[in-house]
């Protein structure tokens, strides 16, 4: 997994509440045995009309192609546990998602794939949405080490907002390591647990 440290990008605005994983990647694209190449199916039913890209859908706008931060609404990623959702987002190039809340399973899955979910309060979110509407090219920056999101707006032209992130997940993202190595470090305890159970 690629380490996540800092990121600066203009945002891809997809400010809708309750975006479910069936929208992020419809089930008919789950018949795969690999993780790669799913970006083409990201938001497929909103993005294509019988296979033809809809130019009005945000991902299809040419200026979005290099952006790495998605600006979502509330409860992003609800529904199914399919990790194909973050696989598709990551394959398209998304590295961070800003939202007022995330569904639990999606949030875990995103972090397993080097995507940082950034939770902001409703006031910061509303201000960011306004700033992006006023200047669609305005950038945000994310510093994971410092847990700081810098957003456009305010008197000085930008505002620094601290965001919450689980300390362990932050450590894994910063180092680009996956969690299995950590779990396997407890091999003795796992064995002891199993033995104690068997003897009980």
């Amino acid at each position: 997994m690629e380490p996540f440290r800092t990121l600066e990008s203009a945002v891809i605005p997809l400010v809708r509440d309750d975006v479910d994983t069936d929208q992020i990647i419809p089930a008919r694209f789950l018949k795969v045995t690999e993780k790669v190449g799913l970006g083409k199916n990201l938001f497929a039913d909103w993005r294509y009309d019988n296979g033809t890209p809809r130019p009005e859908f945000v991902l299809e706008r040419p200026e979005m192609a290099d952006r790495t931060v998605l600006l979502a609404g509330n409860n992003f990623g609800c529904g199914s546990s399919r990790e194909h959702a973050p696989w598709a987002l990551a394959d398209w190039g998304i590295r961070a998602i800003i939202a007022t809340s995330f569904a639990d399973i999606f949030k875990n899955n995103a972090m397993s794939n080097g995507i940082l979910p950034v939770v902001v309060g409703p006031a910061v979110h509303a201000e960011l949405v306004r700033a992006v509407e006023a200047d669609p090219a305005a950038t945000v920056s994310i510093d994971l080490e410092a847990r700081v999101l810098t957003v456009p707006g305010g008197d000085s032209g930008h505002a620094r907002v601290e965001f919450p992130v689980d300390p362990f997940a932050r450590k894994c993202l910063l180092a680009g390591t996956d969690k299995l190595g950590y779990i396997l470090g407890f091999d003795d305890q796992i064995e002891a647990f199993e033995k104690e159970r068997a003897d009980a």
Partner: protein
Amino acid sequence: MAEPRTTPRTTPRTIIDKIWDAHIVAEEPDCPAVIYIDLQLVHEVTSPQAFSGLRARGMKVRRPERTVATMDHSTPTLPRGLAVVDPLAEAQLETLRRNCAEFGVRLFELGGEKQGIVHVIGPELGFTQPGMTIVCGDSHTSTHGAFAALAFGIGTSEVEHVLASQCLLQHKPRSCEVVFDGALGPGVSAKDMILALIAEIGTGGGTGHVFEYRGDAVRGLSMEGRMTVCNMSIEAGARAGLIAPDDTTFDYLAGRDYAPKGADWDRAVDRWRTLPTDDGASYDRSITIDVSRLEPMITFGTNPGQGIGISSAVPDPQALGDAGQRESLAKALAYMDLAPGKPLLGHKIDVVFIGSCTNSRIEDLRAAAGVLDGRKVAQGVRALVVPGSADIKRQAEAEGLDRIFTGAGAEWRNAGCSMCIAMNGDQLDPGQYAVSTSNRNFEGRQGKGGRTFLASPLTAAASAVSGAIADVRALKGGI
């Protein structure tokens, strides 16, 4: 290393605390706990990359005997022949076959006697037991909570963690008691209880929590009804929902293929009887719903929280104060092509789907058959009845339910997820309306452009014979 932060034994504990405490393998400061997983269920869609990861690391499945696989999502349900819908699905099924053979995992194969939807066969075969931690790469793993298991969906990376280590990293979830008080009226069922809860708290209302369902109305439910309730916990955002075990639980499990037997069974039941929440234990949150005021529920929108009582009118976006909510509702109604302020009763439908891990068990089929017996599916409506497992199919046929379904003009299928997720060829056409006993009405969930009304098996069957959304209580000739 720090001692595990378990709740002190003198403090009254919830059933969630008890199961959690009993599964902590290790816990370090500022880190999630390493918790032991008693049972991992596996299906073809979310497991291939996990097995590949294991192979790339040169690892084995740590506890194959705690791992159970089946084929359900992309499997055909047509009664004749077992042709798989496309080469991609075939390759995925073949990959599961190969992985199970290579890693020594028990597989309930397509075409086999015990095959079925993962959340149907786990309990049916007695793998699912009280006090267990259970995971699966599937969000409806919450179903198993009906048996007082702490059961939740995980991603494929975590499927790999559990295959490799039999453990998972987890933060202790917050607890929420959901009390269903009162008695259900005629025509109102477990599905209506859970749809009412989700309508009340929304699809994100339970995020970060595990539900414990309590109250007289829960105690009065069969195991099938309890599974329906727990199944849709995730639709309220709660990864897990569970119900304390009682005699109903034990009666269901006794004698199941993989349930304990003889003296082991007696010891297990003694242990299970210690699981219920202690008097005086506290929850982080509490919600109470009086079920005696409920009528059959139906969804009108594009998430399971957009539900109403069947005689209510579709809400009007203009009546909402919050701009975001107003826009969400307007978008949902545009997708569904529904006018605000009008009731759904009488709205024409094209398809009725009775099945899925929510409502494909014998009791669900009996309920639907009760309505269809002596009646006909309306002209122009396609009705599919898809049992949750090969076992349920046999039982239904032994009871003659299949003849009621086919006699009424419905299709009687083999077991699988079928039109709930539309991966196997069973799907809606663009623009079609379906009343479905499944769990998700997301845009395109049952087929691209398809429109879903979620409801109970009773409401689905009543709508099938009416050709339009119907209130089973008003059906001529009674329920």
